[in-house]
């Protein structure tokens, strides 16, 4: 039936695209599992891998610390002012501190940090890994007796997770200080009230969920770019931008998915 040929071709192409999409998720899941197991294996850590972890933390967290701190401080200050003013206007001034801390520390700052690290370091990692595959550098490393997974990829995941945790902690601590100042002003006599509100917000389930979310963000911003880079075909340089594009889109969806799941677990 010659009339059916275009339809069959279209369906075949569509099916192939769907399979490629599913293969991408499968390789992401597999790499995430391997990364977690390797990260928890003491044998992974030697002089070389520790150096890569240190470099990753330097480039992902330390190098951007001043800019990121300034940016998160300005954003936190503006959002806290909006929440505090709105709460006062609607007669909920007593809830202003709790609302601003819940919005910023539990929701916005962890997501913002993950997006910041993902856009900056995740894109760079994706490009570098794709270029490594294209130029056959992984095979060259393996031929030298250096396991590329343990030397290049696992340390990046560990460094990335530590960086996201550290940057989130810095931004959150700064937001707490700014929230205190915005609500109580420049004095220390309201620390007891402040601590009571913090105790209400940061109960054990909330802290556990926050830790789990930030860890998931940290894993996502490194595991997705690496697994997407590894999927690049050897010797095809034109594929590198496609790999980065796919990696960043997948990263965005995963970050949003983690955020939505955390919101569901917390509020529904």
């Amino acid at each position, binding site marked *: 039936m010659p009339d059916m040929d275009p339809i069959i071709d279209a369906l075949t192409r569509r099916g192939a695209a769907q399979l490629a999409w599913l293969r991408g998720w499968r390789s992401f899941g597999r790499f995430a599992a391997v990364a977690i197991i390797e990260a928890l294996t003491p044998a992974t850590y030697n002089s070389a891998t520790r150096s890569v972890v240190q470099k990753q933390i330097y480039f992902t967290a330390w190098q951007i610390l001043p800019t990121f701190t300034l940016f998160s401080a300005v954003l936190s200050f503006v959002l806290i002012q909006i929440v505090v003013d709105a709460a006062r206007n609607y007669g909920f001034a007593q809830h202003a501190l709790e609302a601003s801390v819940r919005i910023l520390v539990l929701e916005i700052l962890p997501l913002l940090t993950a997006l910041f690290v993902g856009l900056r370091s995740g894109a760079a990692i994706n490009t570098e890994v794709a270029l490594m595959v294209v130029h056959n550098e992984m095979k060259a490393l393996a031929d030298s007796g250096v*396991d590329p997974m343990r030397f290049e990829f696992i340390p990046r995941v560990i460094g990335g997770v530590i960086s996201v945790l550290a940057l989130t902690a810095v931004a959150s601590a700064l937001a707490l200080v700014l929230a205190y100042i915005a609500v109580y002003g420049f004095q220390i006599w309201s620390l007891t009230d402040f601590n009571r509100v913090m105790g209400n917000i940061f109960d054990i389930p909330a802290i556990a969920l926050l830790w789990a979310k930030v860890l998931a963000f940290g894993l996502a911003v490194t595991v997705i770019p690496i697994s997407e880079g590894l999927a690049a075909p050897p010797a095809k340089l034109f594929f590198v931008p496609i790999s980065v594009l796919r990696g960043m889109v997948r990263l965005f969806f995963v970050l949003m998915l983690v955020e939505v799941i955390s919101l569901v677990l917390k509020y529904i």
Partner: protein
Amino acid sequence: MQESEISLISEELPLRANLSVLENVAIVPQYRLNMAYDQAADQAWSLLVELNRTECAFKRDPDLTSEERFIAKLLRAVIRSPSIIIIDRPALLLPDTHYPPFVEATLAALDDKLNECWIVDYTWNEPLYAPR
């Protein structure tokens, strides 16, 4: 023979692009023997000194001449002390060099560090090599 006992020097096995020559060589003992970076770098440096090529120690792959790149790949293999080093088609690695004497002189300088070295080349290049 196990594959780990053989090191291949080939155009198809590049240096790690984001590492300098010194780091590319030092990473092998640093990773395989859990050697501290300073100690591994000293070992790599001493190999570069033996070949009088210390000027390329801190260069990365795109800044290297083909001779320097060949030296870096060779030292990355030598520092691992494999049973056999195979140099795959040296003409591809050293396109602008009269390579048989260059390769011979380089291997002679590292003679005490090499177990066995095989050069794989096309039969039509046989006249380029000294008769054995």
